[in-house]
């Protein structure tokens, strides 16, 4: 086996691995869509509190959860339908998201409704979970900028724990924009770049 043959074999291995990496990039649509729904929902909840319509908070939260659940279901189902290859990366990511989603539901509804703690603590606890979701997505896909976005969630969680204001919801809205929609856009940019390379 000469040098050229070895180089050829190594280049085959490299190019195949790179092709798979490109094919399996995350589109970021899920994060962008649930980010938009959450911004609208959080803004609505903030406005209801501002105008003393607190009884509408819970229905909006449930509606937001249902819509986000449906988005998750359709995005994943659509991705699986188009999928030609199944990767460990995506499996791990979806399982982490699913697990954190269950934890978020417990924090959002189960414990406050059973009076374990007050609803005031919910945004802080949910933000900690969201930070874990974004951080793990950044680590799994080796996107450092996405990892940094988790700091928005954790920083915001601290901020919301100590600030008492009727405009607290605006912090949450900013966190969703920079902690969900922005990482989603970073994923989408990488996805488009890789799609272009694959077409080329």
């Amino acid at each position, binding site marked *: *086996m000469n040098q050229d043959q*070895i180089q050829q074999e190594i280049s*085959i291995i490299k190019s*195949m691995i790179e092709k798979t990496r490109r*094919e399996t990039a995350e589109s970021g649509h899920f994060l962008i869509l649930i980010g938009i729904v959450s911004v609208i929902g959080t803004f609505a909840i903030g406005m209801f509190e501002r105008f003393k319509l607190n009884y509408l908070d819970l229905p909006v939260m449930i509606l937001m959860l249902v819509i986000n659940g449906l988005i998750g279901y359709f995005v994943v189902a659509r991705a699986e339908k188009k999928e*030609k*290859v199944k*990767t460990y990366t995506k*499996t791990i990511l979806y399982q982490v998201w699913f697990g954190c989603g269950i934890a978020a539901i417990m924090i959002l509804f189960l414990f406050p409704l059973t009076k374990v703690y007050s609803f005031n603590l919910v945004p802080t606890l949910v933000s900690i979970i969201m930070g874990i979701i974004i951080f793990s997505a950044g680590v799994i896909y080796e996107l450092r900028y996405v990892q940094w976005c988790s700091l928005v969630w954790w920083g915001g969680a601290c901020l919301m724990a100590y600030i008492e204001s009727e405009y607290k919801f605006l912090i949450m809205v900013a966190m969703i924009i920079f902690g969900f929609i922005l990482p989603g856009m970073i994923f989408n940019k990488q996805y488009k770049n890789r799609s272009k390379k694959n077409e080329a």
Partner: protein
Amino acid sequence: MRHEKILQLDPIIHAPTRLAILSLLITVENANFTYLKESTGTTDGNLSTHLTKLEESSYITIEKTFKGKKPQTICAMTEKGKKAFAKYLEQLEQIVQMQQDKT
């Protein structure tokens, strides 16, 4: 010494198309026939032949399923295949090292 190493290279893997197939499958849980065909740039018949050879060596598993109403062939690497591929890479590395030592 050098000849010994060459003789040890796994003949099942030591074919460009099969090497490409295994390089793809090592990084994923599974891949379908269309994806393997597109990525390796081979024909249906050629790919089938190579996949059968890999399956006969127990390096991969081939499963025929349905996605909706469409039939599809799903290929995944076995533990034996992963070990053989790792060994192959190790040997390739050793050959490169030996050639570098020579020069």
